[in-house]
């Protein structure tokens, strides 16, 4: 149990990379990239966890009454989730452009269209 979260993060990252490398459709590849990104959130939050800890949000909790988990990693992961979504949108916009110009979204066919 002490190393399971880190292994799950590593597994999700490797699965995303495998999907990215062997994908036959660029939209599928963008989905695999977002899987890779979510692996980093799992690793970040697993590093910040404390046994028996709760969230450092004191709207309904007396400060200091219970141990709290690490807020810094949560702040990192929080902004990255939203920025990751807009970067995924930018990649999808690129895929739309590629399908307009080259009439295909298969990366193998694309590499043969040299100019």
């Amino acid at each position, binding site marked *: 149990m002490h190393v399971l979260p880190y292994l799950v993060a590593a597994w999700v990252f490797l699965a995303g990379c495998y999907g990215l490398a062997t994908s036959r459709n660029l939209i599928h590849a963008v989905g695999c990239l977002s899987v890779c990104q979510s692996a980093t959130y799992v690793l970040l939050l697993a590093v910040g966890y404390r046994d028996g800890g709760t969230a450092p949000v004191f709207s309904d909790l007396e400060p200091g009454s219970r141990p709290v988990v690490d807020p810094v990693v949560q702040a990192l992961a929080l902004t*990255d989730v*939203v920025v990751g979504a807009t970067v995924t*949108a930018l990649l999808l916009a690129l895929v739309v452009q590629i399908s307009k110009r080259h009439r295909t979204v298969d990366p193998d066919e694309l590499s043969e269209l040299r100019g």
Partner: protein
Amino acid sequence: MNRRTRLWLVAAGGGGLAVLLVAACLELPAFGGASHPYGDRAVRASLSRHTANTIASVNFDQRAYDTLGEMTILFAAVLGCVVLLRQTRDEHRARPEPEEVAPPVRRYALVVLPVALLTGLYVIAHGQLSPGGGFQGGVVAATALHLLYLGADYRALERIRPVGRYEVGDAVAASAYVITGLACLIGGTAFLANTVLPYGTFNTLSSGGTVPLLNAAIGMEVACAVVVLLARFLDQAVEIEEESGK
């Protein structure tokens, strides 16, 4: 380099990376350990500035300059989408015909739209108290607007969502964030430093000095950015067609 050699390369690289990752995971401190030096200091700094939600304090007070960077990335990504998905010369815009939707779905969309919009604004406003903040509330509010497309049709959405105004709103919110930072500078402290405004009483809406202001600016910026983003994608998928009708 044909497909087979590429797969072998992926297998070799992936295997090596897997071995290194597992070795690193075994060396990491045990999951659930109690030593979080940065966390304890961040909580202390947040409580000293009367911000109930420590994550909002980290985002908008201790690392406000980083969040300025994050916001610029978000702004640039949406700008890239707007440029890429514009209507080119050899394309024309076809009127989307009205869409016939089952009555229960239409009623549900019209009922839930204000509730979702209200929830989005609630999440932004209570960003520095309960879980939430500008980033999450902005996305919830922007998604609520598109319920009109899901419940009715694209024409109904276009009537209530003038894209130009949201693009201006996006730019205004981004500059509001920077202006708040400059105001702190003019107030005699560092850029984006949270030492100008009074911190107010703990766990109230006006507590935390500049955190609520930056929260609201980010909330508006993310909401407008997502609306502009979805507007461009919807235009491409629903309206814009090639000249030859393709």
